């Protein structure tokens, strides 16, 4: 009996001494989908991934991958997962090809099969030219690609990617996204962690935001965005006097003002009517607008508003 959830985590807890890193995490990932685990530094993303990939013991709860318990059936779990950890784990003195073949053999591929598959991956990941150079001569992006290629050598049905694009330039990031998208098309189940909301937005079917070892929100990118709020019209004025008259003219429509930068934001329910009516109101009171922009909530807003308390604390600490 195979359940629909390839990864199932219930009430997962983990502490290092008195440091409670995970305080009861629940996750479910359906077959062939991607879950993005989003959270600030120290939220517990890597800890979760390490537990799921059998590298770390946990204290409480239950964790299964493909129906196998990660503690009791660790070997079975290892046979179905691929892991790309946060720091690249390739052998620097071996060439890219040697890395791939060795890992393939350790995954129990025959020598011939490992070699053929290595060549295929080198081609897919644009590493053919560098294939026979030691990995220590690779750039950060190449190393990251090799790292991912290594974890795909035996085409495991489940892949863990811990911040696969951190430290990559925009171009390498796009290349990595393309690779990941292809992987999703092939039906692989993926759990990805990231600090980039755009990445989660672009790739994931479902997003779980964790902070301080707890799930603080989950849903699709759109669901999370709608949680944070509606579209807003951002208006900038020349000075505080103009801002004051604008606030009077707009009345209840004003959601927020910034007296330092002379901006006001207006909530928009319907973009066809609300923008013009706001501008009309300003025109009637002879207030001129310097600039304006319609602002749609991004996942960044979600991230900042959900993890706001934590963020505030860290910036306070930095100020001291």
């Amino acid at each position, binding site marked *: 009996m195979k359940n629909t959830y390839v990864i199932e985590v219930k009430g997962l807890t983990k502490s290092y001494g008195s440091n409670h890193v995970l305080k009861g995490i629940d996750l479910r990932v359906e077959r062939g989908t991607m879950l993005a685990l989003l959270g600030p530094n120290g939220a517990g993303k890597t800890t979760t991934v390490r537990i799921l990939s*059998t590298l770390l013991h946990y204290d409480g709860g239950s964790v299964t991958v493909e129906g196998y318990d990660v503690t009791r059936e660790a070997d079975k779990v290892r046979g179905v997962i691929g892991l790309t*950890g946060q720091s690249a*784990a390739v052998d620097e003195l071996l060439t890219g090809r040697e890395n791939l073949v060795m890992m393939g053999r*350790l995954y*129990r*591929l025959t020598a011939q099969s490992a070699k053929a598959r290595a060549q295929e991956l080198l081609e897919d990941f644009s590493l053919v030219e560098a294939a026979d150079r030691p990995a220590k001569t690779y750039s950060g992006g190449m190393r990251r690609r090799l790292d991912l290629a*290594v974890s795909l050598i035996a085409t495991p049905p489940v892949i863990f990617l811990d911040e696969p694009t951190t430290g990559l330039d925009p171009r390498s990031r796009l290349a990595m996204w393309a690779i990941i998208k292809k992987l999703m098309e092939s039906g692989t189940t993926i759990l990805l962690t990231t600090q980039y909301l755009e990445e989660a937005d672009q790739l994931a079917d479902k997003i779980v935001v964790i902070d301080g070892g707890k799930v603080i929100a989950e849903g699709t990118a759109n669901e999370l965005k709608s949680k944070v709020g509606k579209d807003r019209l951002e208006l900038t004025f020349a000075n505080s006097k103009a801002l004051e008259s604008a606030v009077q003219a707009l009345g209840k429509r004003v959601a927020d003002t910034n007296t330092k930068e002379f901006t006001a934001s207006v909530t928009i329910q319907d973009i066809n009517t609300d923008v013009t009516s706001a501008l009309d109101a300003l025109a009637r009171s002879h207030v001129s607008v310097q600039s304006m922009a319609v602002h749609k909530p991004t996942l960044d807003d979600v991230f900042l508003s959900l993890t706001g308390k934590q963020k505030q604390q860290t910036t306070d600490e930095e100020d001291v």
Partner: protein
Amino acid sequence: MAQELVFEKHSRPVQAMVDSLLMIKRSSLHIIRNRDQLLGTFFQPIMFYLLFTSVFGGAIGLALPDGVDYKEFLMAGIIVQTLAFGSTTTAIAICNDMQKGIVDRFRSLPMSNLAVLNGHTISDLFRNSLSTLVMIVTGLAIGFRTSASFTDWLGIIGIILLFTLAFSWLSAIVGVVAKSVEGVQWLTFVIVFPLTFASTAFVPGESMTPVLRAFAENQPITHVIEAMRALILGTPIGNHGWMAVIWCLGMLAVSIPVATWLFKRKTSG
């Protein structure tokens, strides 16, 4: 993913052996590609042998039994010293692995845990044997001669391999425990340096103070040196042969399980 993947289906022990062979290949490639270390493997023994014979040969020669040349006397000592120091690179290699993500990667694979340690200790046998070979060739070039027969040579090679393996596994413990490569160097210096110098590697026991001599003549390294020396010089081997083998097997019996246990404990948690 056009490729059709073919998996092997071996029994567990066979699979564990395949894993170890793969790790031996990996560590051997490390040795070959690590230029600086490889140069050391070649030139350090040459340098030591030439320095010792030319600097101390005259003075120590007087304390040696009649008819024994320092070139022949030194050979066993300098081989064992080189092996003892050479095996510390096992610790460095393991420490390096532990600090990088690579051990995590290995552990997320369905492979045998012990294979990583096996790879380093066994590939070190190759490197150390190479050092020994270089030294013997250097010796022969400057006039080292031996009466050792073919079977004596087999004995010498056996002792070399056994001793290197034992020291590499001891070294593996250091590699697993140490927090940094500097830590490894410090630890091995404190252990290996006194053990090799407070032995009969370079001078006969008769020339030492009584306390030092008592220690030097009964410690494992001396047994290994004296056994090898007897085979080279064609003198009676006494109990040194047995003692050398027993010490080495003893070290292996302790260090393999300890290193493995520590490795498992340090890498999961």
